[in-house]
């Protein structure tokens, strides 16, 4: 009987899978870059940009392939693979891979469960496919950091109250997740602080080029070190399709006394609170306000070290049909509590101005000017450079996308 049921279940799944073919997307994003950036954090420097002075000219922005495969009526699988060409460990690797369960709404409520590797719901700017921001080429310092260090590898549940489907003006959403394999999260904030870049760390990769110095971490973020799961809880309120307020509390519950010699790193106990507000008007204006504040700790030999970090950003954008102009201001700081003059502390801000032209499904063009001013004591100690650096980059992006079904 059990076997018959299993067979029937498999048959239903197969019929469902046949009835709904997979959607695929493929995109190539090429860049033309002019930059006076210091040696990039991707090359183990203390520069804040992805493309530094030595990486100007024509560059690969991102080669991306994505697949959405329905599995029966209410399950689906999502896979995101990318090539970034930044001397990463693997030439092509995954940024997200998960199975989603999305049953039908009932009496105004809908639940959703994701299992696998994906982003926590916290960036209101990274709303385009591939977790990209449509407003600029380079996301905010907060989103850059999330893309660099944070990934949920675990189970997330969401419940939506779909008030707008009941005649109300509001929808509500609650999220909770339990995850592992993100114990090194925080290590990059202590190593090079915040950076402004569109490069997302891949699940089996690392942050840029290999670290040749055996004193430093291998920059691999997605490892389970202490066998303690982390969690986050979040809430979202939406007013029609005009405004979204998102709140998230994150705690990876890492045991900071545990070392991971295989990646020359520790379990970094990282906790943060994030808030984001996005408002859109009927005449094409968008405002996005984001804030992040948190701490990260390690405790080698039970000697606790603490870094505080915070960042805020405000983006204003105006859309004129297929054209959009955006401006963003970012502030960020990391404070090494035990000695602010020692490695790990920094203070900085950034301005970005971008124009995007999105004429249709296949092409998208963007031009961005970005300036990051930062004071990083580590530059003096590690590189013998001045602590202050002002880095400017002008970048043009041409992205060609294809999509279809199998």
């Amino acid at each position, binding site marked *: 009987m059990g076997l018959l049921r299993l067979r029937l279940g498999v048959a239903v799944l197969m019929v*469902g899978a046949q*009835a*709904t*073919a997979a*959607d695929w997307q493929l995109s190539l994003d090429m860049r033309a870059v002019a930059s006076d950036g210091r040696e990039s954090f991707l090359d183990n420097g203390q520069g804040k940009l992805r493309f530094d002075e030595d990486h100007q000219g024509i560059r690969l922005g991102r080669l991306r392939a994505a697949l959405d495969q*329905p599995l029966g*009526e209410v399950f689906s699988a999502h896979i995101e693979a990318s090539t970034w060409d930044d001397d990463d460990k693997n030439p092509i690797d995954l940024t997200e891979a998960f199975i989603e369960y*999305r049953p*039908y*709404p*009932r*009496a*105004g409520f*809908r639940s959703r469960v994701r299992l696998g590797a994906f982003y926590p719901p916290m960036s209101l700017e990274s*709303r*385009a*496919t591939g977790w990209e921001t*449509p407003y600029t080429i380079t996301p905010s310092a907060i989103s850059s950091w999330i893309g660099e260090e944070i990934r949920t590898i675990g189970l997330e549940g969401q419940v939506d109250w*779909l008030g*707008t*489907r*009941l*005649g109300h*003006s509001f*929808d509500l959403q609650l999220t909770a997740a339990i995850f592992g394999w993100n114990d090194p999260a925080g290590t990059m904030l202590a190593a090079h602080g915040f950076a402004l870049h569109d490069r997302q760390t891949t699940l089996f990769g690392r942050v840029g080029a290999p670290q040749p110095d055996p004193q430093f971490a291998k920059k691999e973020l997605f490892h389970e070190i202490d066998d303690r799961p982390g969690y986050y809880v979040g809430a979202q309120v939406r007013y*029609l*399709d*005009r405004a979204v307020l998102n709140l998230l509390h994150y705690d990876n519950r890492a045991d900071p006394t545990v070392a991971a010699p295989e990646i020359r790193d520790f379990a970094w106990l990282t906790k943060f609170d994030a808030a984001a507000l996005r408002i*859109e008007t*009927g005449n094409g204006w968008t405002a996005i306000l984001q804030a992040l504040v948190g701490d990260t700790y390690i405790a080698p030999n039970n000697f606790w070290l603490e870094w505080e970090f915070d960042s805020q950003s405000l983006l204003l954008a105006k*859309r004129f*049909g297929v054209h959009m102009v955006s401006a963003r201001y970012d502030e960020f700081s990391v404070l090494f509590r035990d000695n602010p003059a020692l490695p790990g502390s920094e203070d900085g801000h950034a301005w970005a101005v971008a124009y995007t032209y*999105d004429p249709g*499904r296949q092409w*998208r063009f963007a031009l961005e000017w970005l300036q990051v001013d930062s004071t990083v004591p580590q530059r003096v100690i590690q590189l013998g450079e001045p602590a202050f650096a002002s880095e400017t980059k002008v970048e043009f992006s041409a992205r060609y*996308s294809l*999509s*279809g*079904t199998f």
Partner: protein
Amino acid sequence: MSILPFRIRCASAAAAAFLVCAAFARAGPLTVTVFKRDGKALPGAVVTVEAESQGAPATQPIHATMDQVDLAFVPDVLVIPVNSTVQFPNSDAISHQVYSFSSARRFQLPLYRGKPYPPVSFDQPGIITLGCNIHDNMLAYIVVTRASYFGHTDASGKWTLPNLPAGKFRLRLWHPLLNETAEIDRLVDGATDGTIEIWLSRNLRPAPLTGRPHSWDY
């Protein structure tokens, strides 16, 4: 009737709020014009005119279509007589999953492309809110009515019924962005051949945003 959510008045009698002014003469055309609070015309308002007397001839059911094009339902508001059927084709290249949990008709169409399902029948009057379980920005409404006469206001906020017979009728107004919580309905006399103006007493909710690129909010 406690708080009247809107005012109906004669074009010629501006001060006569909450009043239907009629010529009480003979059957003839009925023109309804709907104005927003700011005085601008309201297009797309659904007007239904239903006979008060029992035994009025029922409107013939129809076979209608609610399409899905470019991640939107087309049309965004569909008015059909009770017992009509609606086909829900998906003209997009990607799959949709249509649902309603409105009390007048609950249904769901499992993930699909093209036109794999038979039409859905609607045998209860009411307002059905449609959604797509994959794309939360997709929103549309089906208004199922017993009324003999119905239609939308045009760009100038006007809807004209060529010939309303004599007798008592209930005129109802609905629009997806109406903030009024009470149902907007009034009695009119079929002998009326005047113009009815409806002035909304409250602001509308903001209209859904349009024209955002397809790659957003995937």
